């Protein structure tokens, strides 16, 4: 029986583990947190159909429950060495594992919105990130602003920490556009009286049903889209926020007062992925995400033999894309092991 070590117990790690176990291998998942599920734990409802994130996570986990793979939680990988075709993995819990293949599924980190100081996250009271808003959108979530008032006007800022070289991230995080549209609709459903504006540079509705949701946001929920990137936000004495942008289609500066400002934070490769790159001795792109052996047929291969990649450690990815990428990683590992 072959043994595969998977670094990361988010959705990519779980799905890869589950598929490899099906193929008859022995799998160990190493997860730094106490709980499996990774960043999915931060989300309440998923685009494009508002499926509860819990449901997706539980469906993934329940598939695993019938299977037999070991999980080392609250554990990190310290070193990985390859000698004579075998990987020797040492963990922070002093375990020593021997593996035939390694799958890196370390995922992403959310952009720390405090780095865009001009938007005032953690400085002003009613500036939140898309991840904060997910918690506020839960049935018992609190959507009120200063003095218990219901927000009358809400603005979303797209591309916070994405397509922004000043933040060090030149790339597109791919999922924020549709997340913003989804959250705008959810907010409108909860607060039908509120005016909602999305400030965007481009709207990238790349996936199945995304364009339809965008249209629905305009048609059914009266969400207004204004093309322009916010230059700054400033808090007024009543805790509302004055925001400034250019209405680039009108070619004129624009200002408006809002009660709540939502920052659609992007994805970064994060520390977990960076340290996995170091321990495995594999390369990163300039974006910080892991380099795949090629862009088409080997998107699950690192440049090192026996080290495979799954999910958003390779690029920003949606939940469905991650699951598919994880399954293909499992298939590649399985095919590769057969040839050994």
């Amino acid at each position: 029986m072959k043994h595969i070590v998977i670094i990361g117990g988010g959705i990519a790690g779980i799905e890869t583990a589950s598929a490899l176990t099906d193929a008859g291998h022995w799998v160990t998942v190493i997860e730094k947190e106490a709980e499996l599920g990774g960043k999915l734990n931060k989300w309440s409802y998923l685009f494009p159909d508002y499926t509860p994130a819990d449901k997706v996570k539980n469906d993934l986990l329940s598939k695993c429950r019938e299977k037999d793979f070991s999980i080392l939680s609250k554990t990190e990988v310290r070193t990985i060495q390859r000698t004579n075709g075998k990987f020797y993995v040492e963990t922070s819990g002093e375990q020593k594992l021997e593996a035939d293949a390694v799958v890196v599924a370390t995922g992403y980190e959310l952009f720390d919105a405090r780095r865009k100081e001009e938007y005032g996250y953690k400085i002003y009271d009613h500036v939140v990130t898309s991840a904060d808003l997910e918690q506020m959108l839960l049935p018992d979530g609190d959507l009120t602003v200063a003095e218990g008032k219901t927000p009358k006007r809400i603005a979303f800022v797209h591309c916070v920490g994405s397509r922004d070289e000043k933040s060090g991230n030149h790339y597109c995080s791919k999922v924020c556009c549709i997340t913003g549209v989804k959250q705008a609709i959810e907010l409108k459903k909860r607060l039908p009286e509120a005016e909602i504006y999305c400030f965007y540079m481009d709207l990238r509705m790349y996936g199945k049903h995304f364009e339809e949701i965008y249209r629905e946001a305009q048609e059914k929920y009266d969400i207004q889209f204004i093309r322009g990137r916010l230059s700054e936000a400033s808090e007024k004495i009543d805790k509302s926020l004055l925001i400034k942008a250019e209405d680039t289609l009108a070619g004129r500066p624009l200002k408006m007062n809002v009660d709540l400002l939502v920052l659609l934070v992007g994805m970064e490769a994060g520390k977990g992925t960076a340290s996995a790159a170091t321990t495995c001795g594999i390369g990163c792109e300039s974006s910080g995400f892991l380099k795949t052996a090629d862009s088409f047929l080997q998107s699950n291969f690192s440049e090192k033999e026996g080290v495979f990649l799954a999910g958003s450690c390779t690029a920003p990815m949606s939940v469905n894309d991650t699951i598919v990428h994880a399954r293909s990683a499992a298939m590649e590992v399985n095919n590769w092991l057969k040839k050994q």
Partner: protein
Amino acid sequence: MKDFGFTVVKQRTIDYDQFDGRLLNEIIEKEPSFKVCLSCGGCTATCSAANLVSFNVRRISLLLRRGETTELESEIKKCMLCGKCMLVCPRGINLRNVIMLIKKNVQKHKTENS
């Protein structure tokens, strides 16, 4: 008054808090297809009037959304109602009806601050 050679420059900033949405709301109510504009500019590209005079039919939608009623009133006079914009529009907006509705209703909603 004595002319000192100074004038008050009108603010170019669009102040959303002064927004007067009455004309917009009336048009959306009567021509809901107007909501789904993507600002692609296909309408302007094909516009017969735009080839002859300074007229941008895509901007009609913007002026309406920003409550710029006065400018709107003078702009729509340039439209010849040929309807080519509707043939091009990827989202099937009945732009000719939007312009007709502006013509019909703009006077009613003209305000001091617009």
